[in-house]
């Protein structure tokens, strides 16, 4: 059992242990979809939604697995749930917002392989959070992901207009930016980091 307060869990997941910038989870969409602000935000929201759904499901599944004494199936069970949740989001988006669906492209099904989501499910299991704590943790992780991807998208939109040497164009400069962002987020470590 874990007795951390809900506000601590939330702040910790958003700032001090930000999933992207401090724990290195979910880097593929962070680098892949952060080119434009108006695709980055929906991507963040979709990820957050999948996080919430899979966090709730993972909590339930874990109880069943522990009850049946088959914890070695945890990984397989979690990943199947996440894949289904992503499928759900994909179908919803395709129906209600085809334009957005096309804009997100390959990165939408790739939410399945977003480590942030499986990581969240695993961490909440390791930390033995109860139901409410898990939910708040998922909310915090999702908010942190949106925050990171929005900041990155904003920076990269500015970068488009600046004059870079040709060597640095592409992924290298994005990674450097990510490094600086991560460095600035270290300032939040006093709020209860590791």
């Amino acid at each position, binding site marked *: 059992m874990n007795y951390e307060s809900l506000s601590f869990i939330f702040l910790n997941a958003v700032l001090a242990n930000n999933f992207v*910038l*401090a*724990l*290195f*989870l*979910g*880097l*593929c969409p962070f*680098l892949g979809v952060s080119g434009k602000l108006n695709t980055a935000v929906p991507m963040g929201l979709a990820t957050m939604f999948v996080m919430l759904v899979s966090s709730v499901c993972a909590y339930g599944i874990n109880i069943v697995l522990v009850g049946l004494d088959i914890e*070695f*199936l945890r*990984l*397989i069970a979690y*990943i*199947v749930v996440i*894949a289904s949740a992503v499928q759900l989001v994909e179908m919803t988006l395709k129906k209600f917002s085809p334009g957005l669906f096309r804009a997100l492209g390959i990165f939408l*099904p*790739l939410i*399945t*392989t*977003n*480590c942030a*989501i*499986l*990581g969240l499910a*695993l*961490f909440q299991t*390791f930390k033995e959070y109860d139901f409410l704590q898990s939910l708040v943790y998922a909310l915090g992780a999702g908010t942190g992901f949106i925050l990171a991807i929005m900041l990155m998208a904003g920076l990269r939109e500015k970068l488009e207009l600046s004059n870079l040497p*040709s*060597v*640095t164009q*592409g*992924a*290298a*400069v*994005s*990674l*450097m930016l*990510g*490094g*600086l962002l*991560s*460095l600035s987020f*270290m300032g939040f470590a006093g709020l209860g980091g590791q």
Partner: protein
Amino acid sequence: MARKQNNTITWDTFSEGLWRENPVFAMLLGMCPVLAVTNSAINALAMGIATTFVLLASGILISLLRRQIPKQVRIATYIVIIATFVTIVDYAIQAISLDLYNALGAFIQLIVVNCMILGRAEAYASKNRPLKAFVNALGMGAGFTFALLCLGVVREVLGAGKLFGVDLFGPQFEPWVVMVLPAGGFIVLGAWLLLFEWFKQRKAQSESDAVVEVR
């Protein structure tokens, strides 16, 4: 399969993963473990080997089953196969070295969601014979391990003044702590990419110069 396959295994089947299509430096796949566990060279090596094992085993199995797996559910099937092998690796590392297991943390289990493995399953193992898939997976795994080591060595030398746990500079060395912190991971990988891009541009430059001279 209606399409005629090219079944010959060449050196290129192996080497494309090492350099030209290196999963990390050229294709930017599987970034999360690349940055998260490379704060020391030994962690990087262990992670590389574990990932290579999963890549090989899942590659062979998917390639063997490629005619049986229905098209519609192939991604889910691949994920379940990969998750099975990752569970094996997870328990194996736990049995071999608990220290290593604690150092790598959740990132062993997160091999499941390494985009590189799923990408290889989809793009290569599902279309080729087992032996060819095996050779290619070996190359990709070696390339991935190489990239992890590139980062791990730089970050451990600069951040802790050590290499594989051996002190390099003596006690007066002031460790460059930021390198073993998350920010250092981004910056070191960015620097490697810059270096490779610079090489590539220089090569392209010298080639175009050569063409001009011939004229």
